[in-house]
């Protein structure tokens, strides 16, 4: 015995089970570092500035806009961009720059709420699927596969039409849009969260909680959920980009605000027929949509890169 002990390399002795403070980062410090890394990224800054600009337009649109967005009394229709009307006038003689500024509102009052709804429902569903596994996971998984075979826009058209069948025409309230787009996001979020939960499920802390006799909802929400927040936050930013995409497209297709409400997608649908006469009535709302979607995706991309490290 004693002859062997000479060959055993000496192990560092940990006194009272404590690791020296310098070796362990406290969670709040890790969080601060992550945040700093995100804030320093130029793509994030550009994305955030553009997004904030449109949020300000949505909140204070009427006070920023130079004219009344639904006033038709300026000059004749289709006046090309000029000093007084930088983006020109549309077919009805309305000021396009004002309509683009105020038009951010209808997208931004639906998209964030829809993404939050979708991510909350999807996370809960993903936790249940990943934690229980077995036939629960299998059955829900098949349903999710089936729903994901239908593009979001087509699914939304089907459900929104069915919901407004008893009324004349198609009436879409912002609340209805939030519900439908949020529910349509749920399957894909659930799939992402499920695969994150699968990694955690067999780790020691989950086993320990089970042995302590904790109930399943407690383990899912208090033990596992904090450890899968990274992918959930990434999912939230990615969904927000898709929500703007979806809401703008649905508005273009007529499933959104109705005239004369200023809205980017609706504006393109209304003015497109005369694009060869007055390109400005189509291009400026189009650029507004593109700038907001790309800006949010720049944010999402940075968050994803930093959290995936």
């Amino acid at each position, binding site marked *: 015995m004693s002859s062997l002990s000479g060959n055993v390399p000496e192990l560092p002795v940990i006194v009272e089970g404590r690791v020296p403070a310098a070796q362990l980062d406290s969670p709040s410090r890790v969080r601060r570092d992550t945040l700093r890394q995100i804030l320093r990224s130029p793509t994030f800054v550009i994305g955030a500035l553009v997004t904030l600009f449109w949020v300000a337009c949505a909140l204070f649109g009427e006070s920023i806009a130079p004219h009344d967005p639904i006033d038709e009394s300026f000059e004749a229709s289709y006046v090309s961009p000029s000093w007084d009307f930088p983006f020109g006038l549309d077919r009805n003689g309305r000021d396009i720059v004002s309509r683009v500024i105020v038009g951010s509102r209808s997208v931004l009052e639906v998209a964030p709420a829809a993404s939050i709804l979708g991510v909350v429902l999807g996370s809960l569903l993903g936790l249940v699927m990943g934690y229980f596994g077995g036939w629960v996971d299998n059955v829900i998984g098949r349903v999710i596969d089936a*729903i994901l075979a239908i*593009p979001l826009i087509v699914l939304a*058209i089907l459900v929104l039409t069915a919901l407004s069948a*008893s009324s004349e025409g*198609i009436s879409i309230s912002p609340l209805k849009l939030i519900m439908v787009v949020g529910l349509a996001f749920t399957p894909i979020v659930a799939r992402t969260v499920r695969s994150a939960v699968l990694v955690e499920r067999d780790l020691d802390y989950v086993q320990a909680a089970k042995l302590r006799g904790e109930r399943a909802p407690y383990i899912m929400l208090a033990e596992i959920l904090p450890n899968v927040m990274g992918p959930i936050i990434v999912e939230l930013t990615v969904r927000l980009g898709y929500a703007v995409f979806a809401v703008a*497209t649905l508005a273009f297709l*007529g499933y959104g605000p109705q005239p004369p409400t200023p809205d980017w997608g609706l504006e393109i649908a209304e003015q497109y027929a005369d694009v060869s006469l007055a390109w400005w009535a189509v291009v400026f709302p189009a650029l507004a949509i593109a700038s907001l*979607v790309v800006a949010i*995706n720049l944010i999402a991309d940075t968050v994803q890169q930093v959290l995936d490290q």
Partner: protein
Amino acid sequence: MLRYIANRVALGLVSLLLLSMMIYAAAQVLPGNPGRLVLGREATAGAVEEFNRSLGVDRPLPVRYADWLSDAVRGDFGSNYTDGRPVTDDLIPALQKSLFLALFAFVICIPFSILAGVFAAMRRGRAEDRAITVTGLSLAVIPEFVLGAVLVTVFGPAFLGWFPGIAGTLFEASFLTKLDSLFLPALALALVLFGYIARMARAGTIEALDADYTRTATLKGLGRRQVLGRHVLRNALLPTIAVIATNMGYLFGGIVAIERLFGYPGVGFLTLQSATIKNFPMLQACVLIIGIVYFAATLAGDLLISALNPRIRLTRQG
């Protein structure tokens, strides 16, 4: 291999069956009474009942679903509420038009995006790589109709005048005229796809470039061209095929908006039109067809990959 195919097909059929149930429920339960819907508020209760009986919608839901399904698998998707014509009369030509547009978009997109992805991978981390990645990422997230509207403004009658802004009524025209009028809608769809396919081609190429077999090939003295062609690209493009197949299905989301923008009477246009007039038999058939196209495309992609990849082909054998 046979067992793998059988498994894969069975799984797809289960999902498709579930999908058909959900579509049927959404289109038949949510809207309420079809007789009231078609005849309007002023119709008498007796007339509404009579109409419902003639459609057979007074029977219990599971019975109606089973009937509808057994007709649907034989190619009969029911008749319009409005004029009683079979929905397939309009659906089949529309599907052909949409598939033509989708294929056109893929033909434009695939060579460019694979080239760009492989090029970006070989210039990994440099300015060219960054430029391709950011461009692809941005294009992939912009709605198709926005890209379409901008493309029409630039290349359409407003400025350059190279292409028409309408793709609607030219289907009887000559093949070249057809391609000419479909170029802008196809390009808008292709630009959205570009980001996804190029990203996948880049990732696949990077993985293959870093793999041991590539190093072995280089070390045993093969030329750069041979290493790339025989060893890197062959392995790099397998995951790209899966992405192309999945996107074939997702393309139909964008096709609705693009067909609306250009007035092209495909499945997307028909979906929107039947939704507007609340013709639910047609609407549910359109949605189901879009789901079938998605399953068929992903199935074809999976089978192609397993046929090209000996590891899958051989290990799943028994």
